[in-house]
């Protein structure tokens, strides 16, 4: 399982693991029903204390992303995983927006400028995504 830990991130290690597992599941890199590595193995791989893995797996189990089958191991749950709570998602984005607003203020951009720039960037990103599909069609 491809997980990396970044200590300078400011995010607790178990949360990084939780987020990355959720991402792997959501993006289909881990299929439902697939087995996750046992706690010991993952702890050895990541060089973290096993209790952190225990915590991470515990949280994943609470949010029904994974489930433990007695005696067999830990597996990814069938069906769509419960969404990360709205509050958590808002919190991540709000942090980014606060940073963006402060920077903008320092660099003398108004809020209207920012909103306009956000839309411009979105359009540009959509175009670059659309181009390869156009090339594929030809």
């Amino acid at each position, binding site marked *: 399982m491809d997980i990396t830990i970044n*200590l300078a991130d400011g995010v607790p290690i178990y949360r990084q693991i939780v987020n990355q597992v959720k991402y792997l599941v959501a993006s289909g890199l881990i299929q439902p029903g697939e087995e996750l590595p046992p*706690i*010991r193995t993952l702890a*050895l791989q990541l*060089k973290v204390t096993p209790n952190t893995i225990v915590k991470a797996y515990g949280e994943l189990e609470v949010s029904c992303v994974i489930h433990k089958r007695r005696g067999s191991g830990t597996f990814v749950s069938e069906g769509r995983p419960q969404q990360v709570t709205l509050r958590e998602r808002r919190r991540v984005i709000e*942090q980014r927006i606060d940073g963006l607003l402060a920077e903008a203020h320092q660099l003398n951009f108004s809020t209207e400028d920012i909103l306009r720039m956000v839309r411009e960037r979105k359009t540009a990103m959509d175009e670059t995504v659309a181009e390869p599909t156009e090339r594929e069609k030809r």
Partner: protein
Amino acid sequence: MEKTVVDVNTLSRSFDGMTALDTVSFRATAGQVHGLVGSNGAGKTTLLKHLLGLLRATTGSVRVFGLDPVRDPVGVLSRVGYLSEERELPEWMRVDELMRYTQAFHPTWDVSYERELLKTFALDPTKKVKELSKGMRAQAGLIAAVAHRPELLILDEPSSGLDAVVRRDILDAIVRAVADDGRTVIFSSHLLDEVERMSDHVTLMHQGRVALSGVLDDVRSGYQRSRVHFAQNFDQPPVLDTALAMEGGGRTWSVVHSGSLEQFRHSVVARGGEVVESRDATLEEIFLARAGRSGQQAEAA
């Protein structure tokens, strides 16, 4: 209720008038990894030596598995594995003789685990201790400490002066010790990223006192690091509420602060600045703020 493996109560110790430990209290629960951090001379080794009975508690009490390590050395030491900084092994002994010798003291010795570790570390059993390099000695000492599957593993600066390969071996041993049921690990280290990865509980010692102690994630969430922009230039770090350490210059400063984010933000705004970015502080930043020399003010309680 979790079982308390180590219970140290208001332990004080001084050497030749110099205080090494000042009313230190420390508790280790079973099945957890306890990291001990502190600058040189903070008292980590002194504390660990008390747990093994190498030092006698003059004031305060030390109990390991509920026993006094000085009065009952056999009861405590038979369940403890110890890897020390000095690694004082007899020079003339061969590695295999060392293993056999240590095995005689611990009936719970696991020969297959010992062989597996010897193979992993690629240690030649017929070599004498004096022919081993520093890293190999650490490996041999580690095998002797963990092969009997002790309930408590005490590692004093296990990674000091060792290369990355040996360090990895030691971390692996810690992980395996804890992953097996109910085993406890206490280790002291200078390498804060190691402590951050490997500890469940962390205790920071400074000048013989416990500066902070608690579950690692809780400790980290109690401190934040923020980037702050000010409207005006400051030559000296501006005084801010709950700030512990400040770095930077001019208009941009990086601040480590504890307590409420709102309180800090108020204080920043009051001085004409704004908080650009904020995240949980890393253990290294907390350590430098609490125990380093660039601290802005005396530590808050």
